[in-house]
């Protein structure tokens, strides 16, 4: 067990001295998760609203599809994205393979069903009288949408947190379409996997600590916001 404790001590040293390789992985992770979360929230919140708010033919089938996508394995998403952006793929000419954008695309596919499904559930849980009240007060389509999402804000925040937890901790997509290239596409999770394989526990533990810290800060900030609203 000594090597774990040594690793922990070294980890603190790496973080406190601003070890460039460690901070590069942290930066890449924050960058790609920010892109993927922005994309999945921009697409997923209106999508979840439409799915939860409206009745339409085939709604149950769409819901089943979205729920199934909640269990998408990250390596399968990595494989699909790889197939599309590799040289032989339909988007091969875009030159996305082994770039942070490629990782962000994969992570968006991972997060989107989570945001859609949980936002839809939050919207479905709203009081039926809300819609009647808003319409009878003169609200129009986009005003009904914005107010309903605000009324379901705690559910929407929970959806975002769950999705963020998933993209922050995934390895498969980052490894397959990012290529784990040092200084470029190496994220915290791929770095942990690599360093552990090499027997370099210190950097692995350091990055693990940072992952936990990020999750903690995000949760505490949102809990604070929740209390304020």
């Amino acid at each position, binding site marked *: 067990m000594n090597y774990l404790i040594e690793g922990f001590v070294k980890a603190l040293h790496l973080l406190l001295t601003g070890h460039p390789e460690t901070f590069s992985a942290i930066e890449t992770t924050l960058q790609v998760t920010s892109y993927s979360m922005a994309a999945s929230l921009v697409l997923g919140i209106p999508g979840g609203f439409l799915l939860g708010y409206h009745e339409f033919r085939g709604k149950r089938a769409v819901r089943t599809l979205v729920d199934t996508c909640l269990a998408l394995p990250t390596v399968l998403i990595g494989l699909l994205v790889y197939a599309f952006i590799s040289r032989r793929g339909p988007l091969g000419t875009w030159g996305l393979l082994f770039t942070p954008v490629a990782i962000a695309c994969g992570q968006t596919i991972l997060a989107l069903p989570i945001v859609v499904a949980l936002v839809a559930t939050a919207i479905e849980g709203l009081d039926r009288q809300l819609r009647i009240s808003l319409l*009878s007060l*003169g609200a129009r389509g986009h005003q009904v949408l914005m107010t309903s999402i605000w009324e379901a804000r705690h559910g929407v925040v929970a959806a975002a947190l769950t999705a963020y937890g998933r993209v922050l901790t995934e390895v498969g997509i980052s490894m397959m379409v990012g290529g784990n290239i040092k200084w470029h596409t190496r994220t915290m999770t791929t770095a942990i996997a690599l360093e552990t394989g090499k027997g370099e526990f210190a950097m692995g533990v350091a990055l693990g600590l940072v992952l936990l810290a990020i999750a903690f800060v995000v949760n505490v900030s949102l809990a604070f916001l929740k209390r304020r609203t």
Partner: protein
Amino acid sequence: MGWIYQAENLQHRYGTQTVLQLDHLSIERHKIVGLMGPNGSGKSTLLRLLAFVESPSRGRIAYFPADGRQSSEAARLQVTLMGQEPYLLKRTVLANVVYGLKVRGESENLEKRAAEALQWVGLPPRAFLKRRWFELSGGEAQRVALAARLVLRPKVLLLDEPTASVDMESAQRIREAALRAQRQWGTTVVVSSHDRHWLFEVCDAMLHLFKGRLVGSGAENILLGPWRRRTDDLWAKLLEDGQELVLPGAPGPDAIALIAPDQLQLNLAPEGAPSPVAPLDVPCRVAGTLLRLTLERASGRILATVAVGRSLFTAKIPCGGSHRERFYPGQRVTITFPTENVQWLV
């Protein structure tokens, strides 16, 4: 004056069930119109259609704004509905009251206007403006919801049982505020309520709904089955106190009899036992206790509510002063009506 709403052949369905079927509907501008009827009679559905938050399955409701220019935009901005259990946004009272103003793009004097609206419903603005939605009682929440409608100075105010689940003070405040809107701004008020006496007192016109159909303009007596077919081909209904109503012409055991209140004649009961007699060509008669006398504002006549067992009958007392002076609540009275004027609904 003129009509503010008109509709023909209006039908509304939920799935395969028809919940509202009206051949004709007209509502006059600046009037207070009461909607009465038992639960499930279609009152809330009609109010939602009048508020344009739902579209009828068949037919169309025409809304005529005062400027004569029909548009869905005018209807959306001039008509507002307060449901039986209105939804308050998870915000402060101020944010709730000014929500309708904000969606109209108004931004001037919002706090002052919200304070004024709160005063109309009897809530001190200083104590309430900054309160959050969960810091209100049921009656206060209902009053805040009404203030959110009144602040819009609507042309049409639709109220769905506004006092059904609130305390007496809130109920009184809500009633006063609704009537004040009509008096001060000429708002057309359409209100549904189970408090028929209040409706009779304040309404200029009444619509009586039953099973999604308009059955009259107020106090019609509705007698539900079961009816038992007698050997002489008459149909009998046993009332809770043992008296029997005997009528001709029922279409079946589950038929519903409809008797207009002006068909009922009220007399002081003679001493001794009541005599529920009803041969075919003789008026039907039952005895009961006079419960309440109410002034019907629209006609200026007195409505007498008589309890026969658990059934309530409503009779109109003629305008002559001598008739009015004879009756007071608590008296034993008889109700007589000609059987040929009974309408049957299947």
